């Protein structure tokens, strides 16, 4: 960035130039190494997204490809379906339950683990291990645990609950409000799915928060303690604000996971009765590959991508910029 002062900079400039030349050959090697990956991603990510976007604007809604221009007709058609309207409700409800559950549980466990406890790594490992399992296995296992006739309900019944929940088979909405074609409340079936998802991913939030807690200087907590702050106030006024960037990171990554949720739903419930547990990802997959409505499926896929881009691009840009400054 700094410009050399003209006049007395001559010898310096020569050194700089030769140095630059030897550097640049090696820099070219770096560029050459990156080219295959850039080409692959250029095609498989960026090219394919454009391709999908193009398909969404055509009349390709049967097994035989048809690239006749349709404009935004597929988008309108998709938005008018009962299934997609249900998807919008479901993804919002699921994302809120899932993220809130992971953050609350993750933060709680991280704070407990941060108390200089014994067997710390054992506890940490237990809370993170579900992340090593596939969403599909989680779905199968939890559909057994939350089967209304057995599993968790046996425990609830032994505790005296005579009407235990129907979990993922429930068709109840709370509250029950008709909006458009659908019921706009929280489908209770999604609560069951969220429990399984939180079990799987809360360890991630815990790991992020634990890293954040460990980065807070000890003096800061000490100073607050000397000022007479109780543990509760100490936490909310001193510690929690320091965890802001951990929270943002966790929210972004969990949002991405939530929007992508597929295997868990596929294995645990499928679309559910009246699409109470359907998701845009599942809708896209079935519409496209089982219903051969390629253009409709591409429209849903494009919408998914746009939502993802809307929050991941700004996030990535700020992270990279911050890093460059550092």
């Amino acid at each position: 960035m700094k410009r050399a002062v003209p006049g007395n900079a001559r010898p310096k400039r020569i050194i700089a130039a030769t140095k630059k030349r030897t550097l640049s050959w090696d820099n070219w090697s770096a560029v050459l190494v990156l080219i295959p990956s850039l080409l692959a991603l250029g095609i498989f990510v960026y090219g394919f997204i454009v391709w999908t976007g193009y398909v969404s604007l055509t009349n390709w809604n049967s097994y035989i490809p048809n690239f006749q221009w349709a404009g935004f007709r597929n988008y309108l058609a998709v938005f008018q379906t009962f299934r997609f309207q249900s998807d919008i409700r479901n993804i919002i409800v699921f994302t809120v339950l899932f993220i809130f559950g992971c953050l609350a549980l993750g933060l709680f466990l991280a704070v407990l683990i941060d108390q200089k406890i014994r067997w710390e790594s054992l506890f940490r490992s237990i809370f993170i291990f579900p992340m090593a399992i596939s969403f599909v296995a989680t779905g199968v296992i939890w559909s057994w645990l939350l089967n209304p006739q057995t599993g968790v309900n046996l425990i609830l019944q032994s505790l005296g609950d005579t009407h235990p929940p129907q979990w993922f088979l429930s068709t109840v909405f709370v509250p029950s409000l008709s909006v458009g074609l659908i019921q706009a409340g929280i489908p209770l079936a999604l609560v069951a799915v969220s429990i399984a998802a939180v079990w799987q991913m809360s360890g991630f939030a815990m790991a992020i928060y634990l890293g954040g807690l460990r980065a807070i200087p000890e003096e800061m907590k000490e100073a607050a303690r000397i000022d007479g702050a109780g543990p509760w106030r100490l936490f909310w006024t001193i510690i929690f604000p320091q965890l802001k960037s951990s929270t943002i990171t966790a929210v972004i990554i969990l949002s991405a996971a939530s929007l992508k949720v597929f295997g868990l739903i596929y294995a645990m419930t499928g679309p559910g009765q009246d699409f109470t547990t359907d998701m845009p990802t599942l809708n896209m997959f079935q519409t496209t590959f089982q219903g051969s409505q390629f253009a409709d499926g591409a429209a849903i896929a494009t919408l998914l991508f746009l939502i993802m881009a809307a929050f991941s691009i700004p996030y990535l840009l700020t992270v990279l910029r911050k890093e460059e400054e550092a």
Partner: protein
Amino acid sequence: MAERRFRRMGLYIVLSVFAVLYLMPVYVVAVTSLKTEASINLAHMWAWPQTFSLSSLGAAWAQLGPNFMNSIYLTVPATIISSLIGAMNGYALSKWRFRGSNTIFFIILLGMFIPYQAVLIPVLRVLEWLRLDGTIPGLILVNVVYGIPITTLIFRNFYVGIPHEMIEAGKIDGAGYWGIFRRIVLPLSASGFVVAGIWQFTQIWNNFLFAVAVTTPPHQPVTVAVVNIAGSQTVQWNVQMASALMASLPTLVVYIFLGKYFVRGLLAGSVKG
């Protein structure tokens, strides 16, 4: 003092309760898998098996054994290839910064966030065109390409930790781009490869969307088999649980022995600010 002891005890009790809750599914899967079909009873799901039997695991293996092997043929090469690509990219992006390298990093990273539904229709068309549709090599290709962002990220962040003076020292010794990579960087990369390798192994083994979209019956990996077994009405719960257990074992074993590196991959993948 007594109050402090009391509070510490409360802390351990709460942590243990949560540990039990997190491990509850493991208990259920294990005991259900070890029961015989005759002793599967909805009312006694939590009960310890009266007689231990490997018949459920045997029945599950008979159904999903070939798929399990498919997963190995898929995961091992895909993990190795994508880790190597990640190491090369990470080295280029961390130790040889050039104008625009951060832009390239951004272009690569964004690929990590996309919902794969947005590329699925073209992926299947192109695999068909390459005559790789329905096959494990086709699935390897897809997993390698979409694994580039995360492995690049892991290695870039790993190589940033190698002091720049070591690279400079290599340059003074007259080593170029590849010489420095081979003689200085690669020997220091072992734990980077462990982190990237474990992460990719877990992700590719557990992947379901690409597996179900790309492969057809004889070539399907274990995740698809688990769903098929669970989805069929005729298969008993004990076999379903046994198949879920088998599908989870390889990644769980890796986690138990190398969990530290798994968590490092987890945190690296979160692109923290």
